[in-house]
């Protein structure tokens, strides 16, 4: 990049890879917006898009750590399947008999057990990889077959539904927080962002480091706050269809007032993704665990010689992947309102593709959480856009496959140019 724009980006210290990915997302969106005759970039479609991305996005953040440590996890789709299935059995066939149908403790107990199960499966696979030194490709390829078989075995091939009504709110359009809460959240988020920027600047000044010019800090703050408010505005612009509102009023025995409207606001599942993204970013950048994950990916011997227990680290990374897969299982099964034995099929490939498109290097040591989230969003935008245009599914797969290869090729060129191997 040259001239004024290049300097501007440099002064603002914005990652050019991030800009490239946002650019790619915008281009894809605009192309589909035109091709669909103006239905792609609507609040309704963007709302649906975020819902569809949520489960893959959550897992992609964990896959970044797995790939950064020079491993791979092919088992997550099947893990999602068996965890979703067992959570289905727990909340539909076991807990209602003990606690009574609709008891609010049901979803909490179900989610906690799911998380524990996911972390346990992940830790076990991580132990096989770290301590028995079986390649992760093999362990998780075995896991792919084993856990999918397990999911079938639990349900004998049937689908478990309907899921607990409270649990279902964690997945889809039935669980949104409404306009007021969404704006409140946006304001809190904006304030925290500004406090973070001010604190970082103060700290740098107190140590005598060079800082950005003040106008650049203002510009960066404005961009971030603008993005937060923009996304909130979109989520708040999608109105609940009148039919659904009428039915809700009728259920309470009331008449719906003339001209009454209500918007969805943020879905709970999207808030979960947001929370996971922030938590995983802090873990990656600001904790010893995260630092060691990247150190091990950059040079396993050096990590070992620095006193890092790389075997235990591998167990922890896979346990975390398992826990995130459990969160994804909650979102995916809650969105469908049921747990079928094919839940999560091929998700491992979507998740790996999202992480890789997001700039995670398969050679290890390099990757970002926000990249993986954007990678997941780009993939989902492509798939749903093609679906809206009417591309049939075999051709969709071919195009997604081609895009994956193209994205990695562009990434290789980018790294070569920036010397950021």
């Amino acid at each position, binding site marked *: 990049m040259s001239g004024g724009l290049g300097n501007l980006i440099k002064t603002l210290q914005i990652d050019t890879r991030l800009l490239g990915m946002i650019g790619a997302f915008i281009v894809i969106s605009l192309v589909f917006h035109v091709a669909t005759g103006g239905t792609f970039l609507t609040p309704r479609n963007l709302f649906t898009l975020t819902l569809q991305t949520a489960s893959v996005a959550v897992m992609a953040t964990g896959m970044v750590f797995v790939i950064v440590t020079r491993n791979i996890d092919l088992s997550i789709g099947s893990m999602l399947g068996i965890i979703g299935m067992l959570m289905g059995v727990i909340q539909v066939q076991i807990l209602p008999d003990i606690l009574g149908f609709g008891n609010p403790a049901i979803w909490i107990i179900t989610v906690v057990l799911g998380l524990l199960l996911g972390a346990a499966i992940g830790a076990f696979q991580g132990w096989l990889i770290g301590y028995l030194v079986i390649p992760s490709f093999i362990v998780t390829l075995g896991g792919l077959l084993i856990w999918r078989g397990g999911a079938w075995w639990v349900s004998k091939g049937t689908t478990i539904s309907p899921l607990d009504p409270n649990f279902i709110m964690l997945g889809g359009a039935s669980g949104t927080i409404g306009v007021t809460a969404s704006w409140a959240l946006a304001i809190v988020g904006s304030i925290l962002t500004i406090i973070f920027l001010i604190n970082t600047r103060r*700290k*740098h000044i107190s*140590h*005598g*480091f060079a800082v950005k010019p003040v106008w650049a800090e203002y510009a960066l703050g404005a961009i971030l706050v603008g993005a937060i408010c923009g996304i909130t505005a979109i989520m708040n612009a999608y109105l609940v269809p009148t039919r659904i509102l009428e039915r809700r009023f009728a259920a309470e025995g009331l008449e719906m007032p003339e001209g009454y409207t209500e918007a969805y606001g943020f879905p709970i599942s999207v808030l979960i993704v947001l929370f996971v993204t922030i938590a995983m970013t*802090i873990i990656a950048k*600001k*904790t*010893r665990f995260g*630092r*060691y994950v*990247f*150190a*091990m*990916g*950059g*040079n396993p*011997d*050096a*990590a*070992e*010689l*620095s*006193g*890092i227990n790389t075997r235990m680290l591998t167990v922890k990374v896979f346990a975390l992947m398992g826990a995130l897969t459990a969160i994804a299982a909650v979102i995916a099964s809650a969105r469908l309102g049921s747990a079928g034995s094919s839940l999560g099929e091929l998700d491992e490939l979507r998740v790996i593709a999202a992480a890789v498109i997001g700039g995670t290097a398969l050679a290890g*040591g*390099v990757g970002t959480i926000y990249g993986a989230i954007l990678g997941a969003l780009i993939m989902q935008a492509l798939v749903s856009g093609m679906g809206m245009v009417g591309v049939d599914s075999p051709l969709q797969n071919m195009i997604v496959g081609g895009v994956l290869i193209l994205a990695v090729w562009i990434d290789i060129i980018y790294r070569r140019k920036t*010397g*950021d*191997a």
Partner: protein
Amino acid sequence: MSTPLLEMRNISIHFGGIKAVDDVSIDVMPGEVVGLLGHNGAGKSTLIKILSGAYKKDAGEIFVDGKKVEIHSPIDARSHNIETIYQTLALSDNLDAASNLFLGREITTKFGLVDDTAMEAESRKIMARLNPNFQRFSEPVRSLSGGQRQSVAIARAVYFNARILIMDEPTAALGVHETAMVADLIKELKAQGLGIFLISHDTREMMDLCDRVSVMKNGQLIGTERVEDVTEDDILSMIIMGKNPKKAA
């Protein structure tokens, strides 16, 4: 004679059927530089990796200040203020200088999060002493020159109050100017009272920097001599022939 700062006594280690180190004893006094010489595969690096906690010895004892210590891991070695600069430098290429310098010993905030700003500030302080030209603190170390990478590895060893420093081929990848800089640093650290084990192939450099040299061949110690008592040829013959000319005489 006073107590050695560090003593390795009757150390042995096997890899399969091969005795990589066979009943070797070496020691170092405070403020002394002891050179380890020998061909590739003579067992120098293996011996030193036992001391730094990377390998576990099969037999022998290690003493610090005359007290027996157990070293089973790099953390144990560090807890006895034994620091190592590896031939490979052992840097994570994808991390910046400060992250490498503090790897495994990060400075944390009161919330337990790693404090990058504080670590960079400390790195700047130590680098100002070791290599004042070093300015590239926010780049991954992969993009640094050989000498700059070496400074990071040295800074890591020196920062944490090392008492015993192990330097495995510290100048092998360096230019003339940078080699001189490392030599000056060794002299300075020696003056501060550190005990230094230096591994090198360069016999002349060793004669210049070391107080004593220990020569190894095929896992065994051929002999330890004060540099003023031997010629460069004596040392070469110890390395090549595996015989100590002084003892033979």
